[in-house]
């Protein structure tokens, strides 16, 4: 394995595009190095992006936020304004791994690992986060929901790298929430994850996005679940319809972490609970 630590994304892309064999980009390394040590996957070329200018940025931009590719979970949690505007997204990131992992793990890495159980990804789907991608054929910007395509797989082309993520403008009367189910209180991979992002008009939900993790080969954006609560004030009927729609969207597997039946049921439970938290957050902010 070769290790490179380029000073620009241009150089990084150049190394990746011309690499013999497999390539991985290294930001926090909390997935890449685990795979290396466990002999799951050893790339031929490892490109550390942390010495590139701007990768540690958390900046307000166009009313929203630009999060650099190497910003760690701990750095996000420490940004009080970001956490105030996007509590669900910041908490989702914060739930990943231990304090030690938070010192390294990144949003971009969580996305590019391609796990359907990644905690931050449903929250990014719900928040409608987009990614800046640079590669041999130039730059492009795509919705994060376009990036995962299956377990461990993304839509990024060879040589492409995500340079930053853009979180949209928060706007008024809006909030998000993320919940996951794990058997312990910490340190587990989500058995089910659910993010809800809402905007209210008075007491009525005017906009909603609901996303589920770990219940299908990739993270889902569940429009039926969103439609179940739009136009409602999250009454019991709306919550029941939300839970039913969330459960109906599940297409999970039986594995060591959970059963199909369990995941399908708990997806509905979490959708209800996350929606209530988001809803209460909006009302509390008024």
């Amino acid at each position, binding site marked *: 394995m070769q290790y490179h630590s380029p000073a620009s994304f241009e150089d990084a892309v150049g190394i990746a595009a011309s690499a013999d064999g497999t390539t991985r980009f290294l930001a926090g390394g909390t997935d890449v190095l685990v795979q290396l040590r*466990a*002999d799951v996957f050893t790339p031929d070329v490892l490109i550390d992006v942390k010495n590139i200018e701007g990768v540690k940025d958390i900046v307000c931009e166009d009313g929203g936020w630009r999060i650099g590719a190497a910003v760690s979970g701990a750095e996000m949690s420490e940004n009080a304004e970001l956490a105030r505007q996007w509590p669900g997204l910041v908490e989702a990131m914060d739930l990943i791994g231990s304090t030690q992992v938070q010192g390294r793990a990144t949003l971009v890495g969580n996305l590019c690992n391609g796990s359907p159980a990644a905690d931050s990804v449903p929250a990014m789907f719900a928040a409608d986060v987009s990614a800046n991608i640079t590669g041999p054929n130039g730059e492009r910007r795509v919705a994060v929901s376009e990036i995962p395509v299956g377990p461990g797989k993304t839509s990024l082309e060879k040589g492409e790298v995500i340079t930053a993520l853009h979180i949209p403008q928060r706007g008024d009367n809006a909030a998000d929430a993320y919940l996951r*189910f794990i*058997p*312990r*209180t*910490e*340190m*587990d*991979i989500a*058995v089910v994850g659910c993010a809800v992002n809402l905007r209210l008009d008075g007491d009525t939900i005017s906009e909603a996005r609901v996303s589920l993790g770990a219940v299908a080969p990739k993270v889902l954006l569940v429009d039926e679940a969103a439609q179940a609560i739009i136009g409602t004030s999250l009454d019991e009927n709306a919550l029941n319809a939300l839970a039913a729609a969330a459960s109906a969207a599940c297409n999970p597997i039986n*594995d*060591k*972490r*959970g*059963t199909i*039946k*369990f995941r399908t*049921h*708990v997806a509905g*439970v979490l959708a209800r609970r996350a929606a209530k938290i988001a809803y209460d957050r909006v009302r509390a902010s008024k």
Partner: protein
Amino acid sequence: MALDDKKNGEFKVVGTRPNRPDGVDKVTGRARFGADVSAPGMLHAAIVRSPHAHAKILKIDTSRAMASKDVKAVVTRADFAEGLEGDDLNVLENVMAGEKALYDGHAVAAVAATSPLAARDAAKLIDVTYEILPHVTDVDKAMAKDAPVIREGAADKSVPPGLHPNVVRYHESGHGDVEEGFAQADLVIEDSFVTEAAHQGYIEPHACLAQLDADGKGEVWCCTQGHFNVQKICAKLVGTDASQIRVTASEIGGGFGGKTAVFIEPVALALSRKTNRPVKLVMSRAEVFRATGPTASTSMDIKIGMTSDGKITAGQGTFRLQGGAFPGAPMEFTAMCAFAPYNLENVFQVGYDVMSNRPKQAAYRAPGSPMAAFAVESVIDELCSQLGLDPIEVRLMNASKEGTKASYGPRFDRIGLVETLEAAKAHPHYSAPLAEGLGRGVSCGFWFNHGGETAVTLALSEDGTAALSVGTPDIGGSRASMCQMVAEELGIPYEKIRTTVADTATLGYNEVSHGSRVTYASGLAAINASRDAVEKLCGRAAAKWGIDPEAVYWDSGYAKPSGPNAGDFEPLALADITKNMGATGGPIVGHFEATPEGAGVSFATHIVDARVDKETGKTSVERYTVVQDAGKAIHPTYVEGQYQGGAAQGIGWALNEEYIYGEDGRLQNANFLDYRIPVASDLPMIDTVIVEVPNPGHPYGVRGVGETSICPPLAAIANAVSGAAGVRLKQLPMSPPRILEALDVQANG
């Protein structure tokens, strides 16, 4: 050596809480554990392991690995001793597979190379050709008629005819007539229970550094609960004399029974012999899970009868234990412990030791007992619940006492079960109001405790200080308690004594640190060795004073004439005698070499409050109290630590820890991510009550404390969870999907 009654209540050092002697080393990172040493010219080893649960090994091709300049040697089964039999052959077979790989992770070859990375790379270049065989990993399936046979002829003579060859040992015990007992009962409950294998989960993987020369002389440094056992086994497996191998026990990063077995030291020795260089071998975490012993998994049937006022009229249990690909699952302990807390006229228990394609089970803290308690105490809880009786009152009514004929045969000596139950009943936890959504569970637990071969020496120094050498690795702070007992006897300050875990060349044979035996047996040995030294000190004083040695006694660090008739002499302090001991007869050393037989059995009662989220099946343990008889707590803080640690491990086993095998017979969760031991945020503070009912078999009354603490938690938590969920949980771990499933079955049939 029996209980020394005059000692009771007069202790000066015993019962206090001094700082442990190895504390500074442990908090500064200087303490040297198994993987923390190096030797000049050292090679690094890696083991090649079977990816198959059951397979014939057709060919091992080492040519690609040996082609690397970094690779210095490869060993396979051919590099180990031939002609071993019985248990020795079983150990070798587990250390390095012969004709068949018997489980996922079974060692089939090993390589030594110039760096850890080179060794790991080389292991991937060893090509093993397998013929895959049918496998079985479940205990009930392994006993079924059509189950694949792990190994023909492994059963011993105890097994009744007609059982599957995978049933390799059989046990039955009991007394009275259970059918008559059930006929006297007002309510009889019969139910079945299942527990999964749990791993000891020590944080330090197995590690060793070994050198074996062509003349058969060797050195081993390793993390183990018993270095004398390592010496004995290594000598047999590599074919040399035990006395030619010197084994030093490193600091040990947790064992809990799992480091009583030998896995890697003979492999490192064999590689060293082949390369004439020291070889370091360190397991990865995945190797620890795949190839070292978890506990046995079980399938159990329990039947208990009770009168309407709470008297147990009969108890019966069948215990099937799966112990991996070798005989040895502790089913007789499971059977014998099951009903031990209760004074029963009619009791009968049966055990089966069943082989399967899993790693050989290893001891785990009171091996076999926690599962039995889970099954029996769950049924007692259900009886109490259905009859409307208080669970502690019922246990008190039926409790074993001094003189009770134990369910496993002998009559109990002085025991402390009633005292733990009374203390639990009086504890504020038991009477605290139970909040909505919580369940409260209670359980008793029992463990035998053990003595075992023990040798120590106590060497006095010229300056009046003392060095105790013990042969039992310190797995929980025992060097502190040893120093306390010596200080108590010699009458010198705790700080003036140093206890060292000596290597195998220094002392006589010591059994491994298991069976909660160290504070009991090595402690008894330290006391005896101190008294031996005191006798010699008194002798020197007598010689100096020109009086009979019998006319001198030892009091609080001084030799004194025993009375006016003995003469009038200034008392001599220990240091006054040792400062010129070379001229008065030579070094003063106290000894003890024997096999103490008086380890007192011990009992515990636990109380736990648990909350169950009925929408997700998730359990949280909200309050936990351990009440246990320690006999005499030498260092109460470390006794509390044992209670808390056992409870925490029990919580993990009860709720989330399990070995998960796929259809392919491969272990699916060989890491700490998916083998879920409790983390700090999972647990409440764990309250402890130390009950002291002295053990008549120890001069200070000590009973072992390390193991009994894991016996009640599985049942206590199951009883709390069943109460909170409103449905009886009969399978461990009580993971969220299992709890939801039980609720679903209850609601929808």
